[in-house]
């Protein structure tokens, strides 16, 4: 359960948002909405503990995240709009790397079936994939890492309709299995148990 209390952020003395409070528990999704440049990506980065907020605390399962980073990272996955897959490695090699890096218990057969569902050729080098395919590869990390909290920044960018449907199904499945999702997006997806936070309400102009 993630609890955000009195969060505010300023960059170069210019306030981006303030007085942000919300929480997300198991089986819930939070959609962060707002126009371009309002600070959606910044908020996701703050939640992932990469940026430091100006004021406010984030609590994971009751404990302050700053003092409990290890536990927080053990239970969360961050996917941003940049792709961490290496272009010199094949799809398969990238996923095996992620599996080993996060000591994931996912089986090779499960990986193969994911590639089939996403229609990714496991032996093609990541450098030759299209933008949408790279995004799908990146989203594989959600399944590989098998963590409870999913933090995503703009997960739908570049995906075709069938892929969007797939992602939404994946999100819904995750929720059914006691997972939590926080994502930022410009689109309005149809998902179960979803609350929307409009950052305009917390912005400073």
């Amino acid at each position, binding site marked *: 359960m993630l609890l955000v209390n009195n969060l505010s952020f300023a960059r170069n003395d210019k306030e981006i948002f303030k007085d942000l409070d919300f929480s997300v528990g198991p089986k819930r999704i939070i959609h962060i909405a707002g126009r371009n440049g309002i600070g959606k990506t910044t908020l996701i980065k703050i939640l992932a503990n990469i940026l430091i907020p100006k004021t406010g605390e984030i609590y994971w399962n009751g404990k302050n995240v700053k003092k409990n980073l290890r536990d927080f990272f053990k239970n969360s*996955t*961050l996917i941003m709009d940049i792709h961490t897959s290496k272009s010199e490695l094949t799809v398969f090699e990238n996923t095996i790397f992620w599996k080993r890096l996060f000591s994931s218990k996912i089986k090779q057969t499960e990986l193969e079936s994911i590639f089939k569902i996403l229609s990714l050729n496991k032996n093609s080098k990541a450098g030759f994939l299209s933008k949408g395919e790279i995004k799908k590869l990146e989203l594989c990390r959600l399944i590989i890492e098998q963590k409870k909290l999913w933090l995503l920044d703009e997960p739908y960018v570049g995906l075709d309709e069938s892929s969007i449907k797939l992602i939404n199904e994946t999100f819904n499945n995750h929720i059914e299995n006691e997972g939590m999702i926080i994502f930022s997006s410009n689109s309005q997806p149809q998902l179960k148990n979803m609350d929307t936070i409009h950052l305009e309400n917390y912005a400073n102009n």
Partner: protein
Amino acid sequence: MQTINSILAIFYREYKITFRNFNDIFTILVFFLLGILIFVFSIGPNKEIFNYISIGIIWTLLLLSTNLSINKFYKNDFKDGNIILFYMSGLSFEVIVLIKLITMWVFFQLPFVIIIPIASLILDIDTEKILLNLYVFLIGSPILTSLASISGSMNLLNNRNFAISSIIIMILSIPLIIFSVGIVSATPELIEPQLNILIGILFLFLAITPWASAACIKISLRNI
């Protein structure tokens, strides 16, 4: 156990990526040999002068070749979010820096063990000096890698001033150059004390670098 698996996974991946990008390493080795050539052209093929300055040339060119590999340390992994990925997999920044130090040393300094003797033969250096130089290189090259790591981590968000990363490594490398060249060109009594000093410098930098590089990476992450 999990941490060791993560670390080994990163090593394995770096190994694979560097092998598929071997051109980078080759280019740096060719840069080194070309540098020797330029020195020969600018000074003239005067054997006596070269007897005096050849070790100095080799170490200067090693420093300049390390300059070329500064950006390969962290910039790519920083820009595509891999550093964040490593951090979220439970590794501390200092461990990430150590992994990078080892991989960069193995791939960008170790090949010089073959190239330095070749260059020494071109410059007509005695065999004993070549062996001594190789031994000093094994102690001095980790220092070069540490300096490159410090400089690379400081310049992650630097998009304007490209030369400053080279300047940082050059000014911090002055003791290394003085003592490395000093050991090889020295009379036998002076070899051991200078060697001890060089090893001392190595340990000093091995102690500072993880802290300094990790601090710079952390600060850079908070400012992307």
